[in-house]
Each structure stands twice: as structure tokens, then as C-alpha cells.
């Protein structure tokens, strides 16, 4: 099953939900991203991967959305991993010391073994 929004693609690979947000995630876009992600989380996936390779910018509202997703994932016992971050995006996580809170992989392949 594959859903494509303008802002996000979601893909279920086995029991794993893979989210591909697209574009800049700021205060204008993050509420839409949040709505899609929370709806997907209701389906109780076994694991969640957020691929940030097509995200050019993220601000604190985008980070807040991912923190909320992490909390939701913990509630349903699913693991959450982030991947595909550019140096700029990684910097935003590091500035908030969140690089230690999230499980961060270099690429989607590294996580799925594809």
C-alpha cells in the first residue's frame, strides 16, 4: 500500500511504516505532516522509519512533530528510526542534542538492508 501526499509518501514494507516527507518542514507545513503521521500511527505499525532524504529544511515545529511521533511509537512498542539526513538537517538535531535521542541511520538501505 502506498499513499502519496504532496508533502509525504508513506509506504508499508511488511510491518514497517516508511515515511518520506518531501520539501521544507516549517510551521506552515508541519501541521499537515503531523496529521498524516498521526493517522498512520493509528494503524499500529511494528516499526517506523522516517526517511528525511528529500527534506531540505526542518525547524523546531518539524522537530516537535518527530518528537511526538517518537512518543507515539513508544506507546505502541514500535521502534522509530530516522535516515537520509543531509548535514544541514543533522545539524538541527545536534543543536538540540536530539541526535542521541533518535536512532539515526545514514540511509534507508542501511535500515532495510535492501
Amino acid at each position, binding site marked *: 500500500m502506498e499513499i502519496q501526499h504532496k508533502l509525504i509518501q508513506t509506504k508499508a514494507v511488511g510491518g514497517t511504516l516508511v515515511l518520506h516527507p518531501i520539501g521544507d518542514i*516549517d*510551521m*506552515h507545513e508541519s501541521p499537515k505532516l503531523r496529521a498524516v503521521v498521526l493517522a498512520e500511527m493509528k494503524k499500529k505499525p511494528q516499526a517506523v522509519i522516517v526517511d528525511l532524504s528529500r527534506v531540505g*529544511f526542518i*525547524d523546531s515545529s518539524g522537530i*516537535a512533530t518527530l518528537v511526538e511521533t517518537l512518543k507515539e511509537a513508544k506507546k505502541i512498542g514500535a521502534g522509530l528510526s530516522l535516515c537520509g539526513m543531509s548535514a544541514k538537517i543533522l*545539524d538541527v538535531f545536534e*543543536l*538540540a542534542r536530539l541526535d542521541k*535521542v533518535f536512532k539515526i541511520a545514514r540511509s534507508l538501505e542501511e535500515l532495510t538492508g535492501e
Partner: protein
Amino acid sequence: MRAYVTDLEQLLEVSALLSSMLDLETLLTKILETAGRLMSAEASNFMLLSEDKTHLLFEVMLGSAGKIIQQQGKMKVGTGIAGWVAKNGKALLIEDAYEDPRFLRDFDIKTGFRTKTVLCIPLTVKGETIGVAQIINKKDGSVFKPDDLEFFSKFCAIASVAIDNALLHKKVLAQDRLQRDMVLAEEIQKTFLPVKTPYAENIRVEFRSLACRQVGGDVVEFAELSDGKIATFIGDVSGKGIPAALFGAKFSTEFQYELKTGSEGGELLTRLNQLIAKRSTRGMFVTAVYAVFDPRNGKTEVVNAGHLYPLVVGPRVGQFRIVKSKGFPPLGIVDDQVYTSSGLTLAPGERMILMTDGVTDVKNEQGRSLGEDKIHEVLSSCPGNAIARLMLEVRRFTQESVRSDDVTLIGIGFGPYTEHTFSSNTSAIGPLRHWIEERARAMKFSEKQIGRIALSVTEAVANIIKHTYKMEGDQKIQVGIGINGSELQIHLRDWGAKQDPSLFVSRPLDEIRPGGLGIHYMKETMDVLEFDDSHTHGNEVYLQISSEMRTD
């Protein structure tokens, strides 16, 4: 013998009634009506002493001849029965007026009323006579007796307190009205101050004012001239209060009118000087600086009419110079004074500061002035945000103590500068960010730094939209970008509700929860992050980052 119990009850009733009444005329009428009824009198009246204590003013006159007597208005202290009582502060009981040499028959002649028996009592407050109360003739034709005098005295003692109360109230009302007028005058005066600062590419104009308790006479004028130059005027009218404010308001109009005739500084001030010297209202004069800036090359023409020297700060921290151009007398003193401009050139990154002596003379609670050295130090500590820093320092310095003069500050920065206004709709955040990214890229910031600049600006704008404008999308956010060597200066201006600067703190990072990160990002990535609430309306945030200093 009077029925004392009933009288006492009446007295208590009246006392309660009187103490609740504040309008003087209603009160006096009520007192007389009650007294007249209790004592079965034909006529009664109240006279209050004039402010200079030379006359008794007829406040309320009851009885058939009351109206006619009241038309006489007043009588001299010392004449007539009432005049005698007012002068001597003693009560009089007169059984037959026509037998008493103090009695003036004029009133009876004029009115046709026949005065027989009179009770006249001084009204005293804190030992001082404020007027007299008088009742005339008993309805049954009998004469007043000593127990009538005693009763009326008690009655008047209560009435005196109530009258004093009402007089005080009248005074407070007049004061209130005056205060309201002052507030109104201040509001009107504010409308004479520029709402908008002019803008030209490469020129950043800033303006702040803090009004003192009274209205003051600071004058500020800006103009975008037809040749692309920017003209600024700062003036300080001698004296304070309404006269200075009115003089300043008239001067503003004259300035705008004369500016249309010609904007060259020397000639302009020569003409304005002639205008106000001729008028010479109570010796009032104006100290002023007029300056015209060329955004193409920083060339500046200055005329100083007895005003504080302009200051130039920057481009680097700690640098400043004082502009001691040719000095002239203030406007309005020497009729045929000829004023001439002096030239100077602002280097990129320099900022000329014009102020009124409200800034230098500002006093703290200990009566100490801010002092020139401190002003120079604060202004040059961050040339990119000099005006806001000094304004915040002035406010911090004076704290709760009352400023005695207007504080007016103008800054004119020269060097690469662009201004753009965005809407407060969240959809504007992206374009705003891209605009700033482009600028930063052109300045050879590293990609990592560009990312951080984009992040900080996005957070600052998101804060404005969320907290200042409460998500209202139809408001304005003005973004000014200045370049000073390797330094990028970003000014974000809004016109929303005043924000509390203490909210401008980041949250501890060990708390993992959404929100509250924005301030932390700005603080962590910018060399300078300052919140400025010193505008009359709205707020400003200043971000500064150098492409040289941070390479992490």
C-alpha cells in the same frame, strides 16, 4: 421648646444624606430645603467666600425673593449681616432686622421682601470660615430664639463638612479634566511624530521616542527627497509642557512646507529661523540638526543649530566619532542668521546617531545622569543594533523614576541594506527564508552557516506569527538585511502586541518534548540575538552573525 428628639432624628438623616452628595449645587439646595422645612423659615440662603476672601458669593437662595437676590451675585465681606458674620466668624440671632445697624435694606427695597428676623451662622471647616448660612423669617410670624440658633448651628456644622467634601470633589474633577486634557494633548502630539521611517536601498533609518510624563517639545521629521536622498530633522523646543508641544506642532507643519520649497540644509534652516525669530513666542527657540544622506555614496550634509553633536558609530565594535561640524545658534534667536551645511562621508557600516538632550540628561533614582561616556560605550558596543541598545539602556537606567524630558533617538545606517515586507501568513515563511538564504550565500557564508541562518530566521518569524500576531495571517513583518563587512545583520519588525522580553528564554534541553526549541536555536547559532520592545508600537528582533567568527 423645640421637639429635640425629632430634630435629632432629622439631623442624623440629613447628615447621612449630605455625606453621600458630591455635587455642590444639589447639596446646598438640599441643605437649605431641609433647614427651611425644619425651622419653618420663609427664606434661606448659602453664601461661600470667594477665593480671595473679599466677597460672599450667592450660591443658593431659596424663598420668594431668592431668584432676584441671586442675580446680585455677591456682596462684600464686612457689609450687611452676612458680611459681618463672615468677617467675624460669629453667629448672629437678630430678632428685628430693621433695628440692627448692620442690616442692609437694599435687598428688601430691590425685592419687595420684608426681612424681620434673621439667623446667620458662619460655616467653618478646620477653624476657617468658608461661608455663611442664613435663614430669614418664621412662617408663623414669630421671631427666632436661642434654641433655634443652637439647632441651626449644629445643622450647619454637619453641612460645613459636606460642603467642604463637595468643594474638594469639585477641585478633583477640575484636576481630572486637566489631566485628561494633558493625556489628549500627548496623544495629539504623538500624531505629529513620524509613523513610518523612510527607506532607500543602502540606508537604514531608525527612530525611537519615549515620552516623558508631561508632553514635550521634541520634533522629528523625515523625507524621501526627489533625488533619492533621505532627509532627517531632529529638534528640541525650549521649555516643556503644552506650550512647547504646540510650538513643536506648528514648527513641524512649517518644516514640511518649507521643505517643499527647497531641501538644501543651509537655506532651509535660514528660512525656518527667520519664520520663528519673527514670531518669537515668549522667547521660545529650537535646537536642531538637519541632515541629508545620499544612499549611493554615504555623502552627508549636516547643519547644526545649537543641538547636541551627532555621533557616528561603527563599523567595528567600539568605534565612534563625534561630528563637530560648524555650529550655529538655535533657531528663533538671531533674526538674520545665515546657516550653512557641512559635508562628511559615512563609510559602509557606519551609523549616524541623532538624539535630544532627554537622552543625555536622563536621571536615575539617585539623580545621576547616564553620562556621555556611557552613551558612547553603549552605542558603539553593537553598531548594528545601536539605537535599540541605547533605548533599552535608558529604560533600564531610569527604571521607575520619572523622566523629565522626552527621549528621542534617530539612527541612519549606511552600507548594503535591503528591506522587504512579508505577510504574517505561515505561507510567507518559506519565501522569506529563501530570500535570506540567497543573501547569505552571496556573502560567502558556509552551507552549514546558511542552514543555521535559515533556521534562526524561521524560528524568529514563527515566534512573531504565533505569539505576537496569534496566527493572524493578514499582518506585516518587515525584514531588513544589512551587511557590514563579514557581518550579516537581520532586523525583524512587527506591529503586534508588545511581547514580554523575559519570555525570550530557551528551555532546558534535557526535557524531551515538542515546542520551546526555537529560542535555543537562535541563541545557539547567532553571534547576537536581541529582543527589542522599545518601539512605541510592536517589537523588533535583531540577529547578527559573522561569516568569519564562527566556523564550527
